[in-house]
């Protein structure tokens, strides 16, 4: 259980980093490849379920980052529109 939980936590960090550095094809590919390598590492150390948890949490982490930025942009637009 700790293994899957830890892999999911690691995936959240990867997802957040991917979201924050999604600025170009080459760099994005490097990061995605690194995240997949980390998933392979999780599979080696803790099993397939841990790797799957990492991949799923990476997607959730990306979604969280995008949602967070969208929320900030919405608030800014609302504040600037209200002035």
């Amino acid at each position, binding site marked *: 259980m700790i293994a899957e939980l830890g892999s999911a*936590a690691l995936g*959240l960090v990867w997802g957040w*980093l991917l979201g924050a550095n999604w600025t170009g094809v080459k760099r994005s590919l490097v990061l995605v490849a690194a995240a997949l390598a980390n998933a392979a590492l999780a599979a080696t150390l803790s099993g397939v379920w841990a790797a799957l948890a990492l991949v799923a949490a990476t997607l959730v982490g990306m979604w969280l980052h995008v949602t967070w930025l969208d929320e900030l942009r919405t608030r800014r637009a609302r504040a600037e529109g209200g002035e």
Partner: protein
Amino acid sequence: MDSSQAASTLQLIGAACFGTLIGWYIYFINRNRKSDVQLSDLVTLIGVLGGSAVLVLFPARTDLFGAYGIGLAIGFFGYFAVLIILVNISHNFDVDWFLDGRRKKPGPEYEAAPADRPLAMGAEGSQKTN
């Protein structure tokens, strides 16, 4: 340690604390990197996050890798949480700083630190999302 052996509580705590330090540092690196994402920055992040040291330190089939991951997320998002708290209580920053680094200009009696000084982002501030 034999791969089938369970990790002790002390080992788990140690792995989690190690992960917390790494996570905190990763957020720091990501936040204070140059405005353009350099491949060297990414290589640093990748090496720290899942480098060969992890394979050496944590034997397979133990919970140590899991404890490391939990600690890493605590350190990473803990830094982020502290940042949000500090921005919220500061009169010189608001949430827009997270989008483009904007902040109030220092008054005449203040001077901004030079950009190349460690732990300071200079008057121009970070151009990337924080």
